[in-house]
């Protein structure tokens, strides 16, 4: 049987999760951000699988399937948005897409 314990898997998934998070934080391109989010989601999926394995239940894997489905849906909408963004802004750099923000208020109504 496997020579690694459930906790090892958990740690791996945690590392993956943090990697994804770092990716989201450091990447400026929307597509890469979406990819990093996918990594985070899959890290969570991995953790579910590990937990399912720990308890000898199928639930973890079931959950993973849901995660996959949801990630697919999310990415599809995400990519649609990316297209629109590129269409409108001619860029995918999130630092340039900041039209919505608090404006300096000089005179109040």
């Amino acid at each position: 049987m496997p020579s690694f314990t459930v906790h090892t898997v958990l740690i791996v998934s945690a590392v993956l999760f943090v990697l994804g998070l770092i990716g989201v934080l450091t990447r400026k391109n929307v597509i890469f951000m979406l990819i990093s989010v996918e990594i985070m989601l899959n890290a969570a999926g991995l953790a579910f699988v590990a937990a399912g394995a720990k308890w000898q239940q199928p639930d973890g894997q079931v959950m993973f399937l849901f995660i996959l489905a949801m990630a697919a849906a999310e990415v599809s909408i995400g990519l649609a948005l990316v297209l629109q963004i590129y269409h409108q802004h001619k860029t995918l750099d999130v630092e340039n897409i900041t039209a919505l923000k608090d404006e300096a208020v000089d005179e109040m109504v």
Partner: protein
Amino acid sequence: MHQYLYLIPALPLLGFLILSLAGKHLHKRVIAWIGAGTIGAAALITILLGIEFLQSPPASGAYTQLLWNWFSAGQLSVAVSITADALTLVFIFVITFVGALIHIYSTAFMRRDRDYARFFASMNLFVCSMLVLVMADNLVLLYLGWEGVGLCSYLLIGFWYETPANCHAANKAFYITRIGDTAMAIGLFLLFKELGSLHIATIIEQAPKHFEAGDTHITLIALLLLAGGIGKSAQLPLQTWLPDAMAGPSPVSALIHAATMVTAGVYLIARMHTLFQLSPVSMTVVAVIGALTLFIAGCSAMVQTDIKRILAYSTISQIGYMFLALGVGAWSAAIFHFFTHAFFKALLFLAAGAVIEALHHEHNIFKMGGLKNSMRVVFLTFLAGAASLAALPLVTAGFFSKDPILWYAWGAANGNPFLWILAIAGAFITAFYSTRLMLVVFWGERKTPVGDHPGKWMTVPLVILGIGSVAAGFIEWPHNLVHFTLFSEQVQKVLPAVVLKQNLPSELIFQGIAALVTFAGLYTGYVLYYSNKGILEGWRQSAALLAIRNFLLGGWGFDDLYHALFVQPFLFITRINKKDVFDRLYNGIAQANININRLLSLTQNGSLRWYIAGVLLGILFIITMQLL
């Protein structure tokens, strides 16, 4: 007659109401009739009442009338109730009788004024308040009158309100008397706390039982009441308002600032004599204040050039004599001096008013002169008044009333040679400035042409007052000369008789000295202002003497002192805090919020990565909490 007691204050009140509400639509003649008529009627009732009082004195020594219960809460119960005993009657008589004369005079004096009705309304209200003051049977009602006369004084000093200086004078009078009034109010609080009543008769009765002589509380109460009296009567150190108060019309000065209101302090102390007697310290304070005031004000009177300011300082000085008398325990002498003073000082003011009007509102005595022949009646009556003021022996009322005070200043149990010296110096000064006034105004060459001569409505009151200034003294003779003491007999039903020291020199010696000093004052005045004017010219060259003159002219610098000590700091504080420091505080809080808002707004910069960093911050916070 005594069942009509309430009419005495009610009639002037009625006059006030009619004139203030409907005065605008009334003819001047009607106004004059209402204004003077109500006072005259009150005077008539007073005289009838006085006769009744002398013929068949009431058993309790006083007529009392309860009008209604004013208010009662807790143990404090105050009634609107008036009373008249001998002391009160003297005051009522002066107020209504002299008041009526002054009103009659005013009908002519004020005839050209636009605000004729307002003048008489205020005057009537004044008389009413003053009557309430002296007739009140409790201190709260007395306080009502006390403040009421203050109000009227304010209204009448500032009668010609379009001149800012008049308003300032009015305000000053109100502020300074208000200081005294406040002290007096505190005195009432303390009195109530100690005795549980503000009913005068009760206080008089209870005080000796409740307080030991010299008790701190009673001294405090007496001094606080005294402070009220000082404010109203323009005594040291609250005397500065009275000279300025001359901004009002002359009849006002005569009625309020000479005859009646300014003597309210005398009345208060006399009325509350029991309290003062219980506190030797306060008696001494009263005497010392009186002596100092009479001297200081007299000195100022010597150098004034404004005819009304001379009379004003003279009034302060004369009231100083009354205080001195009160302080040494010569109660009836004080009241008697009030009585005669009311006549001659009212006369002087009215006559001065006539002069001023005739000379086209000229106030400076050195621009007058030579009026002896052109204004005969005024001259004669003024002479009577000035002589009375100077206390010309045996022929003037002033002598009969001032001489006992000089005597008691030394001879009474509380008397003291120092007080006497000040008083006798004051007598000299008084004689001097009276002479100066007469000589400068009526002798010498004419400097300003005479305009209107006073009509009969003005001269008749002058003549009556002139007779009074001479004759009023005859109802009370120094007992070593003629034993006729009608006045003190009556007054001493209310006030205790004076207690003399043992082993005194003969009173006659003192009378002699007083007479001599008076003549000396007259002579000095004669020399300096008539026979040998060169001396004065010589003095004018000396810088030191001029400095002294200016110092005296400015009333010993009290005005400047108070300005620097109280007025300036007050104005400074109000000016720097006009915007209210607490507003700053709250605006600061608001500003702080806005600044935080600015800071937080920076976090909403639209950058997605920054937002994710926010999430990271949150999770870090949560994990930190977990680990702790």
